[in-house]
């Protein structure tokens, strides 16, 4: 990414080849230095404290080397230089509160929804105790929740998830519980899948802009690379086969082995819903190159537009495709607003992948009491239907208000139909149409307008000026406050 970004000036065709490449380069590096300077200084690794141990065995003084961690661990603990994480950290220092801290930073950088908490809370207070404590015999028997259960989830749990997923996807596709593995959240789901489909050093193609968290989820431990496939606003950031071809060929020239394509649908951060045709094209491309397709459908129920959501599972059933290359990720963190519960799904048409993933669940299994809550919750069809209707309606309403508010300021958004955010074009507020300009605006939004929105750079977007704004944790009265603050920057 750092190589691609300075070349943006060239691609945009502004200022000529020399100026277009050199100036953004310099500014980019100066900005990186500036951001680096804001980090706390690393502790001096050579300094050893004075020894005062009692035992002679350990009184080695300065002759002991400092023990090291593995080279793959080294980058993990470093403070992140991604604006995605920087923004989240800044909010923690001064979080907005409607009553107690009206000058605080408003969080628009976290894709969370609190819109239907009232419904969930009511369900929990009525059902939580029973779902955990009760057994078939009616009495509390701790062995029901205390003992080892299959790490990948008993059939009952997988059936509940399969039914739920089918329901939220409009009943147009059914999920076979035996193709399913239950994980402790969406994050481990994507990592386990990466471990199963690609070796260390292989790569996934990924359309940009993409969810910043994928960088960690995929790269931290698997050693799999992410190769961006650039999408443009002219296509509403929808991936094209020609872009996929180009990225695949470039990877091959560089000697990178591409194992699969990873994308989210509804997409994050843009929020567009991929059409059946696009899904078909992606699968056809994957078939030609003999690679995997991973569809992250974590926002499947958070749809509010007129476009219907189509799961990759549905497209996979069409006969011409070898289904075994299709894998789907899901989790309850977004649609059901319960990220704290830690429950996700790997759904794969490949038997060996399911078997390997099952065995890997010992490292990331859902706690048994939580499983019981989920079985109860997901099987409560009446509640789920009520929830789905309210959830979609409330996101829709909030989306309309938010986008309308921005429109009043002359700020447009990308066309979207799903997700908990919108993809906002703030290029008109940039002092310079460049990554530097975008990061300056990001900083101004944080310090002057006191709003945390995720800049496109953090999502590897190739066009500057785009910001992801999450609106599903906002009350209606927060929106005018936000718009007033943004107005200050116009």
């Amino acid at each position: 990414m750092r190589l691609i970004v300075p070349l943006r000036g060239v691609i945009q065709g502004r200022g000529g080849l020399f100026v277009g490449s050199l100036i953004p380069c310099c500014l980019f590096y100066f900005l990186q230095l500036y951001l680096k300077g804001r980090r706390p200084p690393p502790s001096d690794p050579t300094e050893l404290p004075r020894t005062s141990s009692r035992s002679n065995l350990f009184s080695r003084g300065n002759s002991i080397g400092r023990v090291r961690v593995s080279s793959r661990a080294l980058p993990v603990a470093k403070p992140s230089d991604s604006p995605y994480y920087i923004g989240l950290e800044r909010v923690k220092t001064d979080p907005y509160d409607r009553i107690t801290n009206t000058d605080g930073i408003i969080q628009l950088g976290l894709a969370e929804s609190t819109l239907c908490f009232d419904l969930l809370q009511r369900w929990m207070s009525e059902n939580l105790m029973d779902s955990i404590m009760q057994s078939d015999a009616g009495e509390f028997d701790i062995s029901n929740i205390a003992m080892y259960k299959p790490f990948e989830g008993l059939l009952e749990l997988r059936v509940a998830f399969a039914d739920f997923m089918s329901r939220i996807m409009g009943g147009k596709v059914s999920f076979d519980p035996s193709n399913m593995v239950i994980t402790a959240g969406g994050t481990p789901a994507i990592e386990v899948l990466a471990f199963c489909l690609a070796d260390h050093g292989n790569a996934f193609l990924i359309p940009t802009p993409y969810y910043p968290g994928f960088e960690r989820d995929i790269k931290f431990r698997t050693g799999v690379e992410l190769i961006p496939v650039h999408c443009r606003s002219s296509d509403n950031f929808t991936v094209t086969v020609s872009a996929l071809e180009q990225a695949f060929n470039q990877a091959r020239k560089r000697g990178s082995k591409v194992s699969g394509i990873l994308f989210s649908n509804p997409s994050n951060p843009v929020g567009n819903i991929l059409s059946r045709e696009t899904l078909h094209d992606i699968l056809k491309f994957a078939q030609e190159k003999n690679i995997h397709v991973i569809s992250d459908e974590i926002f499947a129920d958070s749809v509010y537009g007129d476009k219907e959501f189509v799961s990759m599972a549905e497209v996979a059933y069409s006969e011409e495709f070898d289904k075994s290359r299709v894998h789907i990720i899901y989790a309850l963190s977004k649609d059901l607003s319960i990220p704290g519960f830690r429950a996700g799904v790997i759904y794969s048409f490949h038997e060996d992948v399911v078997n390997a993933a099952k065995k890997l669940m010992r490292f990331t299994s859902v706690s048994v009491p939580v499983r019981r809550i989920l079985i109860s919750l997901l099987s409560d069809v009446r509640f789920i239907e009520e929830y789905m209707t309210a959830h979609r309606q409330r996101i829709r309403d909030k989306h309309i208000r938010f986008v309308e508010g921005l429109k009043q300021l002359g700020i447009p958004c990308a066309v979207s139909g799903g997700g908990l955010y919108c993809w906002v074009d703030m290029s008109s507020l940039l002092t310079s149409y460049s990554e530097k300009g975008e990061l300056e605006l990001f900083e101004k939004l944080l310090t002057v307008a006191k709003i945390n929105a995720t800049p496109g750079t953090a999502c590897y977007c190739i066009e500057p000026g785009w910001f992801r704004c999450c609106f599903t944790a906002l009350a209606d009265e927060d929106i005018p406050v936000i718009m007033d603050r943004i107005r200050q920057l116009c």
Partner: protein
Amino acid sequence: MGLPLMIERSSNNNNNNNNVVELSRVAVSDTHGEDSPYFAGWKAYDENPYDETHNPSGVIQMGLAENQVSFDLLETYLEKKNPEGSMWGSKGAPGFRENALFQDYHGLKTFRQAMASFMEQIRGGKARFDPDRIVLTAGATAANELLTFILADPNDALLVPTPYYPGFDRDLRWRTGVKIVPIHCDSSNNFQITPEALESAYQTARDANIRVRGVLITNPSNPLGATVQKKVLEDLLDFCVRKNIHLVSDEIYSGSVFHASEFTSVAEIVENIDDVSVKERVHIVYSLSKDLGLPGFRVGTIYSYNDNVVRTARRMSSFTLVSSQTQHMLASMLSDVEFTEKYIRINRERLRRRYETIVEGLKKAGIECLKGNAGLFCWMNLGFLLEKKTKDGELQLWDVILKELKLNISPGTSCHCSEFGWFRVCFANMSENTLEIALKRIHEFMDRRRKF
């Protein structure tokens, strides 16, 4: 080692591409170990499980180290003492909001404080635990794997004393690509680790051009069911300092030591050391699965004296978080000092009595066990029954015990024991009656053998 799945001709594909899509080495490798006898016995049990009433001649599971002896104490607590509080945490139902959204990899402060307090109690206050050094993982399995990712690179090695828990072959090696080099221990000194054995293992690794990153022990030991002596711990730490490597102590059975005074945690040794360069190589793994009998809850922890490891482990724990609901449920219980003190005391006592029952019963049948003082199992010596003191000889005997006596016990070879004829026998995952039945079957077997 596993190779990528070779391309097969598929008759299903009717287009011009006959290739089946490839999977990773991790996916096709057999490092998960589920084809070993350790797991084969479980399969036999699953197919014909013993039940006191419905299937009294079924296979008795003595290969699973689960603690069910103190369930009644937990049940009573969860049901009567504070059920609402357990569900929601101290705020009652409004706590749901925080519960649902909370996915911070730092973990709930109250829960970490409760874990720290519980770990201190187990060690009789001989060591202090700082809640901010506690990193939560979904079980000790995840904790051990996570630590391995952090301390070692692919093709590096951890030294592990034999015999060891069969699961380590999978947990420490599978996704991490790290190797295990065994530290050979034998019965001449009750399988304690010697400085010579340590040096020898280290040298073996060096000779094979493998970089050693640390030593990993279980204390109390699985499968030995015995605590590691204080002197041995000090020697271990000294060795790790000299070689500049890490020391990981998996203390998952620390609360299952029959007499508290007989357990020395590596935390006690480190407590008296101020030198950071010594301390920061020490890491402890713990979990509620064995001592508290709650394996289903998936609660494990890494406790590290190394700031960098704590920070790194926290971030990596995103892949294996403990649900906030579970943290809430357990926080109040573990902070209830009156309850935990009583639980720990009674649990130890019951385990001790079980141990004595089984060891006495085996003795009467003419079978000796290693002198143990902890854990949910005993280390039984059937070497004298082997026709041939080889791996095959041992596995033959294991098979006879499984098929004839219908007892699933774990053979020493699956624990990489260098002496043949040892078996791990679990006693805490069944009722006292079932234990008696198991002992009876062994008696009868030994009687039959004596007649020939």
